[in-house]
């Protein structure tokens, strides 16, 4: 009887903990910001770009070019410019860099993913101009 009474509060706490950690997870380990990035785009960015382009990453060069966890801090014009850069490198296939792909070939963008990123970045930039 007693365990039954405890079940509800425990479940509640469990839900709260899971919710909290998922929020934390989002803040620390993936692309955030108020860009309203569609899930499919976000998952490509998270899987193939975020590893180098986040505040905690190793490479200063990558961090200097783009911080996916800080997109929300950019001014409107900077954000439009960054989206343009993303569309450009995704379109050319110059990112992830070849040297990196030699170590991790699974990180290469597929053609569909390239197109997805380009379309998204261009549309998002245009959206901010209207």
């Amino acid at each position: 009887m007693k365990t039954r009474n405890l079940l509800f509060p425990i479940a509640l706490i469990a839900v709260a903990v899971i919710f909290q950690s998922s929020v934390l997870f989002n803040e620390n380990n993936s692309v955030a910001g108020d860009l309203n990035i569609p899930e499919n785009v976000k998952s490509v960015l998270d899987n193939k770009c975020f590893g180098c382009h986040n505040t905690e990453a190793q490479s200063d060069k990558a961090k200097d070019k783009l911080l996916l966890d800080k997109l929300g801090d950019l001014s409107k014009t900077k954000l439009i410019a960054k989206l343009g850069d993303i569309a450009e490198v995704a379109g050319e296939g110059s990112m992830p860099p070849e040297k990196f792909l030699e170590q991790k070939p699974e990180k290469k963008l597929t053609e569909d993913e390239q197109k997805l990123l380009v379309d998204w970045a261009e549309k998002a930039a245009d959206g901010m101009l209207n």
Partner: protein
Amino acid sequence: MKILKITIWVVLALFVILQFIPNTYPEVVKSNEHDLIQAGMVPGEIEQILRTSCYDCHSNETKYPWYAYIAPVSWLVVRDVKQGRTDLNFSEWASLKSRDKIKLLDEIAEEVDEGNMPMPIYTITHGGASLDDNQKQVLVKWTEDMMNNILGD
């Protein structure tokens, strides 16, 4: 002494042969309907800077100096003008999408601020083309004004 003489002759002969290797110069077009300056979109001070420091590579109005016609220098000139026009061509400015204009303006500000542009190989031979701190500041401020104008459209 004989070896020196032969070497000089060989080098000279090579130099002459180099001149016969074909080299396609990006065309010079003076009147461009979509040109940034010709569209009357920039203040005089900026026009002056752009024409002196940027337009040889970043427009269709390239002024080729005499040595641009002598190999192997000519190859460098042609390569840089081609690359310059591909990356940013002010003669096509008005035909660009707004988002591309903002991307380029942001890039201009960065390149100028960091002193990467104009390129050293250009300023060595074009003394007046290097930008002093004041000119850099003026140019960066202009890119910001332009970007805000585009946003406000």
